[in-house]
């Protein structure tokens, strides 16, 4: 069976692939180092030497964006994985065990979700040291609540199936039921959701860095590079727009892929539709 991929999804796939390749091979692709001061001027215009010009302290902007992309994608990926593992395991567990475990977990998630994620993250980051590990943990934890809700909703439908009942009667352990009975059947809606969570993570880390509470200089992710160059905007220097547009392009291309996957999986059995 051949799959016809719509144009939008193809474009999305192409750019998503491109962004990930650039992220992986950043050290090979970047013409200069990420914190290498290459010019004595600041905000040089783009030239054959510096394709996108230089930033406020004379570093090559293109190199910085390439490394920034790498950092953004790297952190967003790890945080998405963390959020997915925690969220789906707990969601499945709540669905399979039911009773007070389900109640306790679900009410806790309700509570966490009643505070906007960004505000919650700011409150936590006001007290913890701001390191990459802490950022990934905070983002993964806050986002796992959404994955939890989805995973639980999907799993609740599956746990009433005869084969799960049969497995329970056979005396299988919860772990077995979760990984052998529920996970394979819940995978497609979860994978479709993964793209959306990844976008959310990209936006989240970019926003935190933009606010100065994410990746700390001289390291930078895309949001941080926007912050560094924002001052130039008021003088008519558009350097900050390049990283800003990169964030938007990354998010839009992943979104196009996610939309396509979502449309395909919801039409399958076991989807959310």
């Amino acid at each position, binding site marked *: 069976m051949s799959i016809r991929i719509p144009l939008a999804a193809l474009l999305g796939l192409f750019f998503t692939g491109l962004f990930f390749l650039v992220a992986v091979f950043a050290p090979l692709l970047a013409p200069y180092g990420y914190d290498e001061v290459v010019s004595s001027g600041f905000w040089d215009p783009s030239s054959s030497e510096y394709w996108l010009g230089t930033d406020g302290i004379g570093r090559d902007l293109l190199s910085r964006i390439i490394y920034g992309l790498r950092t953004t994608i790297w952190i967003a990926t790890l945080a998405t994985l963390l959020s997915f593992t925690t969220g789906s395991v707990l969601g499945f567990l709540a669905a399979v065990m039911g009773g007070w475990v389900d109640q306790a977990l679900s009410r806790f998630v309700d509570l*966490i979700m009643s505070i*906007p994620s960004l505000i919650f993250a700011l409150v936590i980051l006001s007290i913890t040291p701001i390191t990459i590990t802490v950022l990934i943990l905070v983002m993964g934890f806050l986002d796992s609540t959404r994955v939890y809700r989805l995973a639980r909703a999907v799993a609740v439908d599956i746990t009433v199936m005869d084969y799960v009942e049969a497995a329970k009667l056979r005396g299988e352990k919860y772990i077995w039921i979760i990984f052998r009975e529920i996970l394979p059947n819940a995978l497609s809606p979860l994978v479709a959701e993964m793209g959306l969570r990844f976008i959310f993570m990209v936006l989240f880390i970019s926003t935190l860095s933009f606010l100065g509470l994410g990746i700390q200089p001289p390291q930078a992710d895309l949001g941080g590079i*926007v912050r560094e160059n924002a001052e130039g905007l008021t003088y008519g220097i558009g350097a900050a727009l390049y990283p800003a547009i990169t964030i938007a392009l990354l998010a839009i291309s992943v979104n196009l892929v996610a939309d396509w996957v979502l449309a395909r999986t919801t039409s399958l059995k076991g989807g959310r539709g």
Partner: protein
Amino acid sequence: MGPIAKLLAQRISLGLLLLLLVSIVIFVGTSILPGDVAQQILGQSATPEALANLREELGVNDPPVTRYLNWLGGLLTGDLGTALTSGQSINEAIGRRLSNTLFLAVCAAVIAVPLAIFLGLLAVRYQERWPDKAISASTLTTISMPEFVIGYIMMFIFGVQLRWFSPTAVGYRPEADFFTRLESIALPVIVLTLVVLAHMMRMTRAAILNVMQSAYIETAELKGMSTFSVIRKHAFPNAVAPIVNVVMLNLAYLVVGVVVVEVVFVYPGMGQYLVDHVTKRDLPVVQACGIIFAAIYIGLNLVADVVSIVTNPRLRHPK
């Protein structure tokens, strides 16, 4: 007691309980996490005496429950404490900034809400045709951009290149007359509108489609009612609740968007105040701002629920 009153009482008490729990989460979250506030404020080079003094002053040595109760008591009596970094009363600073933030948010809401409902209706009217498609494409674009990206792009184009509006809100003075104030926040308002517009349109569209596709609308059409009376008698009463819900959820979202937009445009509001003091690790300010943002967020969600209870025809006319 009617079913509506009972449901309302339940929902409102649930909201208050939630707020109490959130205050515990915010307080406990900032108390049990690793990290010594005193050390964070004074830096690594602080002497042990200075650290001990500051801890004493912060009341870190008191048992956590006492500290929480003191803090909560202060909150309830309207005393938010003093900022560590400036030694000034938080009440005063927040009072000024909160009204600035609300002014910004209300201006954005006044534009965004009618526009979103209108465009949502348009999308339903021209379903699957080009206006609908254009609307979903723009939705995809705006939800893929963080607020600050939209902010800087607008600032660069309309503030710096075209010079239609002032690029930042630095010149904002709360005591200036209404139109001067509006002018200085034109760009932030436009950005905030764009941020919530897409979501609100999409959700309005879904809510109206949901109502229009239900069986009772079809019945009304089939028995020969005019389109206008179908909408007035059947569609509208059922669409109010979902639309108000959409509006409230998006206003709640606006509250978060405000934080970033204020930083982008250097607007003296709550968001900027919060972010500044997270950087300075000024815990009392962060806690106070956190609980206020959470309270507004929970409050708007509560209003959404209350409106859907009150406008629900099934609840208003119990059998």
